[in-house]
């Protein structure tokens, strides 16, 4: 079966500006993100490809250390960014210290408080909100025609997507509790005038966070603006896992644009003198390519061959982009 072309999707839906690749770890999501960014940049679009994964490999793929350096130009129109969550967490800590010093007119943070601040930094929730903040900053800031999210491995991507709604609910709850507390406090409010102003500031901060979250989670599930592609390979376990994951994504209302098959061995090898392992692999792939055809009927957007060496550096990225977009 000849797949519908991937480039056609981009031509037909120019308003889909937020591009994501999902799938199990190690199937080629980051590589596809890089190649898609390359293709769009060559078309004259301004593109940012960014990674929120602490296992990020954009630096390795572009052969340029971009970790924590903000959007970095790779070539004209193509920018790449790897988010350094640790640095953001350090900035939070600095902010907290400054607030404490200002608020209490202290010269130095007491040791006891300092150890609290240190401990809080290692909370996983801190890292998550740092990542979330960075992503929201990027999206809200604007300035690019296309944003390509290099998503973390499946389970984490789901987690990340569900997080948006969880945070939303969480903040709702806290906001409500705070509002209730304010009502109880009203009697004493006159006496604690300053304090009441502080409380309001906190409430305002929560509402501000909520607005930002709504904006970014809105984009993730916006069928008009978002294209989500699933990457898979012709192997039984991968097909099963992909089906499981696609179901879960549907639950989160993520608009699936289609599937891309990766690591397909070049069929012309069959007629050549090839080693035993390759003969068997070809036979196995043939079997599962048929399964994929049946299971994902009409939703396969591209079938990308296994490259003869790993995709790092612009030369190999160009080669891969040529195979993806024809």
């Amino acid at each position, binding site marked *: 079966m000849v797949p519908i072309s991937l480039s056609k999707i981009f031509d037909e839906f120019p308003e889909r500006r937020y591009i994501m690749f999902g799938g199990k770890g190690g199937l080629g999501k980051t590589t596809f993100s890089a190649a898609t960014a390359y293709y769009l940049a060559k078309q004259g679009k301004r593109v940012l490809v960014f990674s929120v994964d602490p296992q990020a490999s954009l630096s390795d793929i572009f052969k340029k250390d971009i970790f924590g350096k903000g959007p970095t130009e790779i070539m004209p129109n193509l920018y790449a960014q790897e988010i350094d969550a640790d640095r953001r967490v350090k900035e939070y800590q600095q902010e907290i210290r400054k607030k404490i010093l200002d608020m209490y007119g202290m010269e130095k943070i007491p040791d006891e408080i300092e*150890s609290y601040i240190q401990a809080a930094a290692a909370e*996983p929730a801190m890292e*998550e909100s740092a990542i979330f903040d960075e992503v929201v900053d990027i999206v809200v800031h604007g300035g690019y025609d296309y944003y390509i999210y290099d998503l973390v491995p499946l389970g*984490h991507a789901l987690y990340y997507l569900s997080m948006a709604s969880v945070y939303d609910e969480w903040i709702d709850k806290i906001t409500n509790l705070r509002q209730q507390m304010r009502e109880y406090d009203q009697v004493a409010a006159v006496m604690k005038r300053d304090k009441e102003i502080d409380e309001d500031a906190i409430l305002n901060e929560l509402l501000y966070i909520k607005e930002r979250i709504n904006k970014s989670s809105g984009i993730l599930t916006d069928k008009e603006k978002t294209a989500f592609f699933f990457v898979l390979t012709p192997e039984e376990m991968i097909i099963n896992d992909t089906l499981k994951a696609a179901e879960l994504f549907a639950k989160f209302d993520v608009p699936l644009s289609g599937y891309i098959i990766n690591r397909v061995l*070049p069929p012309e090898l069959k007629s050549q003198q090839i080693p035993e*392992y390759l003969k068997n692999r070809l036979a196995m792939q043939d079997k599962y390519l048929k399964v994929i055809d049946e299971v994902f009927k009409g939703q396969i957007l591209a079938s990308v061959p296994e490259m003869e*060496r790993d995709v*790092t550096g612009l030369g190999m990225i160009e080669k891969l982009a040529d195979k993806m977009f024809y």
Partner: protein
Amino acid sequence: MNQITTSMTKYMSDHPKLKYIFFGGKGGVGKTVMAGTAALWAAKQGKKTLLASTNPVHSLSNLFEKDVFGKAAVVCDDDRCFAFEIDTKDTIERSKQEIREKINWFLRFADLTTKADDFVESATMNPAFEESAMFENMTDIMFEDKYDFYVFDTAPTANARRLLGMSKVYSLWVEKMLKSREEAKSLREMLSFSKKNEADPLMDYLLSFKDRMARAQSLLTNDQLTAFFFATLPESLPIAVITRFINWFYEFGIPVGGVVVNGLIQQDQVANDSPEFVLNRVKMQNEHMEEIWQIFGDKVRAVIPLFETEVKGARMVNRMVDYLFKP
């Protein structure tokens, strides 16, 4: 150097007390298969073995073609080998219930009429809650001590590092909480005329929690009991990833058992007249093998050939044992 100095088998015999092993690495390098293989090997050594998955997307059931979600079941001919995919939902519900009870107790203790539900909801909806629930689950399994040997098919390693890093933080937090609880308790005793020194379940919980964390940390950082192995392919991205991971683990004082290379094309299957495609891939792999020997050197424990089909089912995993644990 370009040969194995300490094989997987030798490492195991050098560490006879080894009880907890973990597999990490980039997605798609074969972590689950390695973990399955190590579990089968341990069972063959006569050890009652548990292979547990803490990954949010499980694949053990798929690997062994048997449903092990939420319950441990025997997965091979050898009835000493069990596999188990941890059901997070279940754990979360249980933790929620525990927290609800504790908050209710506290509210009664403090003579407050507020309902616990709102607090419980807002505390457990916190996204980090699931992660710590998973960690607790893992330590529960370790403490239960029902098996002689444990193999964890770890979640992607960044997560594992964070979880382990957390145990230090946990004890710091708990100490702080204990201190303020002590203060609150003595204040209350001072204020109450009638009540005698009463039991404090919340304090008991915090204390036992602190103990558990300290115990988990001492197990996980003991290089006689625990080892983290890292799997890679002879390709640049997976190598880069585990190079980073291994450095992190050293920082945390977590014992690194070594590196396992997977998916090496067998030279004897390749001839000079093989197609360009094959020769190029072999050339690439050779370059990356050089890199692997250079970076990891005597930490390489095994080099496993590329199999002609995907590894699936107990029989295939069984075949892998001879490769991962070469005599």
